[in-house]
């Protein structure tokens, strides 16, 4: 039933978009307004019915309609709701339907509120966009229909691949598709501009669409990278796989296109460049879809060979030949009016930038098809390893960043050197300070220092430009914050652009750090044993196996110390999916600005008494994600329309301001969401404690000497704060809780009220409590205890922590009725966890 509805809706979408194509074409030919109106309605109708088809597919997923083959293959009953919803684009059929819908939606959006520049192009754009939509809907309906019935209706679906069950993977595909679809708009606008001979309107009309598409592609790539880092557990984020490259290439050409459009808009010229780049971007979108489904690329990640390949190849051929023919017919229009052709002018540098983007794209393309290519040229088949890509594209990216630093300093064809002397101070400063800082911080390999210097030059320029803008305003008496706000607000394109550059530079720092300095080691640890990796000590505390849940999860608790200071507990995890016969190792990451500590639980032996860990230290990795956020923020600022309020009437202006505010709010929410996707999912507790300063008998216990669970707890006698004695073996209770803490450790202070609450509940049930503070001023301890209302016995002691092998605070021990250690908790313990353990002990 639902399947029929979906198929019919898709069919209606096909009819509407095909009708729109013919009706609008006819309206152009006959100059008949009625056909135009009718075609316009058909475009909106196509978007609406395809939207309903998506809803139908969504309902099918949410309602577990396994009579539909696609649903049966990509969902199952036990999947959480949000994953069922995202499974809509979990495979090829559904993602093509989404693509078709977005294509129709964008066609409708171009129509909905055409800007002044778009107005004269809108009829032809509608023709072209309808044609593209028709192609995608037809491919979906006839070759890859997600509503096709299942040959046998299974009782339950096959489920979603475990590796895809991650928030990053929910947003990654739609972001990529929005980018792909968006790149069709500037292309269609370009052809329309050529046909109507209105090429000067084109840059302004195409810019916002290109920018939006480019931002979405960037977001998609970023989320994909973060997903790989968070989920796949190989320590990296980019593997130069052909499928990743297929997404990267259109992004590269779109970046070039944006720059060409800016130059065409500001200085004239660059018409050939921008027109061919828009064609190339669109072709690469088709090419990516084609290669990943055609078997041309030998990739483990390619989609299964499907009948789609030849159709995409045909579409590419038609697009290429049609466009080239049109370019040829309009070659006079495309030939550039006089502009500066000096090498060291802004135009010259922009040209070199574009050349570099093209050579990088070409390198990536060649690398992706190298096996096929070398087999055709020579006898043997070569395959491009990640090292190949690093070696080939690394210098090119470096050159690009260098040009990025130099370019804004070059004005029109004026003497470049003089300008460099006047305004180049931040650039040079950046070029010196960044490598110096990196060298002092221990990043001393020569090649990476060159990289840091280049990055510093470019970063200095970007920061310098913004600072100059702010300074100009503060000299006129504006406050610094207001000046900063206005610099970005009044010239969004320019300063948003600098912010994007700054984001790219930050990302470059992350790339250099992770490519040159990553440390990777493996360790096999028994319970309580530790391993030192660089400045970290990692102690394997215990393995926790939860076989009840699906997937069955096994967690390793790894205490992390640096200079005997307990940094936190990492919990890398291994999930076992019984229905998939697959395991998924989910890494735990501790992020600092300087480096990420990245731990993977790779296996265990001896019944869990021994764990195999894979440990990575990824220097400067945080800069990658930080740069990504700055990049997105900068992009959002450039996309945010300039307020041309002055020329508008009051209600119009008010509406414009309301839109502007709404856009700001949406932008901020998106950024927050991105930030959450970046950092919200890593597997670790955030405890951070420091032992008191060395000296005066600070327990410098070597890790590993603490009594294990089951071993007798060391007996001790201490003097409590009120002067009375406390001896563990004489506590006359069934169970004892010993909490080691220190008043200068915030997590300890956080957990004290929890401990107090548990003590209140259990003190009459045979549970003794004692808190032992590490050496401190007695008065500090007294003050803290009375301030927090802690009433259980409390002592200050030096020896006991040593006997218990305390490596950091807080730590909590449970001692059973036989005087044995029953449970150890590293880091702050929650009331819930403690009660749970106590209940279990008391039940024995």
């Amino acid at each position, binding site marked *: 039933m639902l399947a029929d509805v979906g198929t019919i809706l898709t069919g209606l979408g096909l009819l509407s978009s095909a009708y729109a194509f013919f009706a609008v074409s006819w309206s152009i030919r006959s100059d008949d307004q009625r056909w135009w109106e009718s075609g316009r309605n058909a475009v909106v109708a196509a978007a609406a019915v395809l939207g309903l088809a998506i809803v139908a597919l969504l309902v099918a997923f949410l309602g577990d309609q396994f009579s539909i083959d696609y649903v049966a293959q*990509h969902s199952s009953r036990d999947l959480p709701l949000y994953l069922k919803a995202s499974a809509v684009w*979990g*495979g090829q059929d559904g993602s093509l339907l989404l693509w078709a819908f977005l294509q129709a939606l964008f066609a409708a959006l171009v129509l909905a509120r055409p800007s002044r520049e778009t107005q004269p192009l809108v009829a032809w754009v509608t023709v072209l966009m309808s044609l593209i939509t028709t192609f995608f809907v037809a491919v979906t309906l006839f070759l890859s229909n997600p509503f096709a019935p299942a040959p046998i209706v299974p009782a339950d679906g096959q489920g*979603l*691949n475990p*590796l*895809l069950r991650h928030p990053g993977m929910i947003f*990654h*595909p739609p972001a990529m598709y929005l980018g792909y679809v968006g790149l069709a708009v500037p292309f269609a606008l370009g052809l329309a501009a050529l046909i109507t001979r209105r090429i000067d309107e084109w840059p302004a009309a195409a810019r916002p669409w290109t920018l939006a598409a480019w931002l979405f592609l960037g977001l998609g790539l970023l989320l*994909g990278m973060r997903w*790989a880092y968070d989920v*796949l*557990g*190989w320590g990296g984020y*980019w*593997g130069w*796989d052909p*499928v990743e490259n297929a997404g990267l290439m259109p992004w590269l050409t779109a970046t070039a296109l944006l720059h060409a459009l800016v130059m065409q808009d500001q200085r004239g010229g660059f018409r050939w460049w921008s027109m061919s780049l828009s064609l190339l971007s669109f072709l690469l979108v088709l090419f990516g879809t084609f290669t990943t489904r055609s*078997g041309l690329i*030998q990739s*483990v*990640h390619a*989609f*299964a*060979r499907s009948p789609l390949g030849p159709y995409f190849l045909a579409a590419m051929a038609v697009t290429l030949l049609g466009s080239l023919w049109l370019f040829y017919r309009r070659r006079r229009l495309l030939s550039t009016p006089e502009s500066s*052709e*000096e*090498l060291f*002018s802004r135009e*010259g540098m922009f*040209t*070199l930038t574009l*050349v570099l983007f093209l050579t990088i794209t*070409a*390198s990536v393309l*060649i690398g992706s098809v*190298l*096996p096929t290519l070398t087999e055709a040229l020579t006898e*043997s*088949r*070569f*395959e491009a*390893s990640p*090292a*190949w890509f690093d*070696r*080939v594209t690394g*210098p*090119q990216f470096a*050159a690009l960043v260098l040009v990025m630093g130099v370019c804004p300093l070059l004005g029109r064809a004026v003497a470049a050197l003089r300008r460099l002397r006047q305004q180049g101070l931040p650039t040079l400063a950046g070029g010196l300070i960044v490598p110096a800082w990196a060298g002092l911080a221990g990043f001393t390999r020569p090649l990476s220092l060159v990289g840091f210097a280049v990055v510093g030059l470019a970063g200095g320029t970007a920061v310098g430009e913004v600072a100059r803008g702010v300074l100009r305003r503060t000299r006129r008496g504006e406050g610094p914050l207001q000046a900063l706000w206005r610099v970005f607000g009044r010239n969004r394109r320019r300063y948003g652009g600098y912010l994007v550059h700054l984001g790219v530079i930050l990302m470059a720092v992350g790339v250099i750090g992770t490519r040159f300095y990553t440390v990777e080691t*493996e360790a096999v640890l028994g319970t309580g044993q530790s391993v030192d990796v660089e400045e970290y000590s990692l102690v394997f505390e215990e393995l926790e196996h939860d076989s009840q849940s699906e997937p069955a999860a096994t967690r390793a608790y790894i205490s992390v110390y640096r200079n005997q200071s307990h940094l936190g507990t990492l919990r890398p995890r291994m999930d076992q999916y019984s229905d*998939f016969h*697959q395991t998924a190792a989910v890494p735990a990451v501790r992020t600092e600005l300087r480096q990420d500590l990245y731990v*993977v639980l*790779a*296996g*265990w032996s001896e019944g869990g008494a*021994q764990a*195999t860990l*894979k440990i990575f230290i990824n220097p400067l990795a945080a800069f990658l994600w930080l740069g990504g956020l700055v990049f997105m923020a900068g992009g959002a600022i450039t996309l945010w329309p300039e307020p041309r309020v002055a020329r508008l009437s009051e209600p119009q202006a008010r509406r414009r301001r309301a839109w502007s505010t709404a856009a700001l709010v949406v932008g901020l929410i998106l950024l927050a969401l991105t930030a959450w996707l970046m950092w919200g999912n890593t597997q670790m507790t955030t405890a951070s404690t420091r032992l008191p300063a060395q000296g005066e008998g600070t327990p410098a216990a070597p890790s590993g000497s603490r009594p294990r669970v089951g071993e007798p707890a060391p007996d001790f006698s201490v003097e409590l704060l009120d002067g009375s004695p406390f001896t563990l073996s004489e506590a006359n209770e069934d169970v004892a809780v010993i909490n080691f803490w220190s008043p200068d450790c915030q997590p300890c202070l956080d957990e004290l009220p929890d401990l107090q609450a548990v003590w209140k509940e259990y003190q009459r049930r045979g549970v003794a409590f004692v808190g032992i503070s590490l050496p401190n001023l007695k008065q500090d301890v007294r003050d803290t205890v009375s301030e927090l209302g802690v009433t259980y016995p409390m002592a200050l002691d030096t020896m006991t922590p040593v006997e218990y092998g305390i490596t950091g605070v807080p730590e909590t021990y449970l001692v059973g009725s036989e005087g044995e250690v029953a449970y150890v908790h590293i880091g702050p313990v929650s009331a819930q966890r403690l009660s749970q353990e106590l209940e279990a002990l008391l039940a024995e």
Partner: protein
Amino acid sequence: MKGKTKLVVAGLLIVAAVAYLIVTSTGSTAHYFLTIEEVRELGEEAWERRLTISGAVLGETIDYDPSQPRVTFTIAQVPGDPKEVERAGGLAKVLHDAVNSPDAPRMEVVYDDVKPDLLQHESQAIIRGQLGQDGKFHADEVLLKCPTRYEEGIPGQAEES
């Protein structure tokens, strides 16, 4: 026109530099992409080269020692040419046939690393590494794909180990 010439020369220099990079990198860092059969044919010559081989994983041969960590497994010959795979009835069928054919050339693989999540019976393995003088293939990197079940849903680097 002088400015334009300079610009064109600069552009050509970049293109030439990139072409040089591509050619030399292909010589130095690219891997020979071979099938098991082709590796066997190379004989001793194969010892010195960096190779990428692909094959079908035999599930019962997978042996994982997490205390090393070290994985060993055996792969069976599959054709390297996509067209040949297509003629034989698709990748899933080729992999299935390969593991069930006692005549298909096989190769033992040693991978001193943790066991990849997707290493299982009949998955397609693409392995980068070197052929040791012991006749075993010593892998630096193992990429995997299971065509029977996940052929569509895995984007990005899902199988990277």
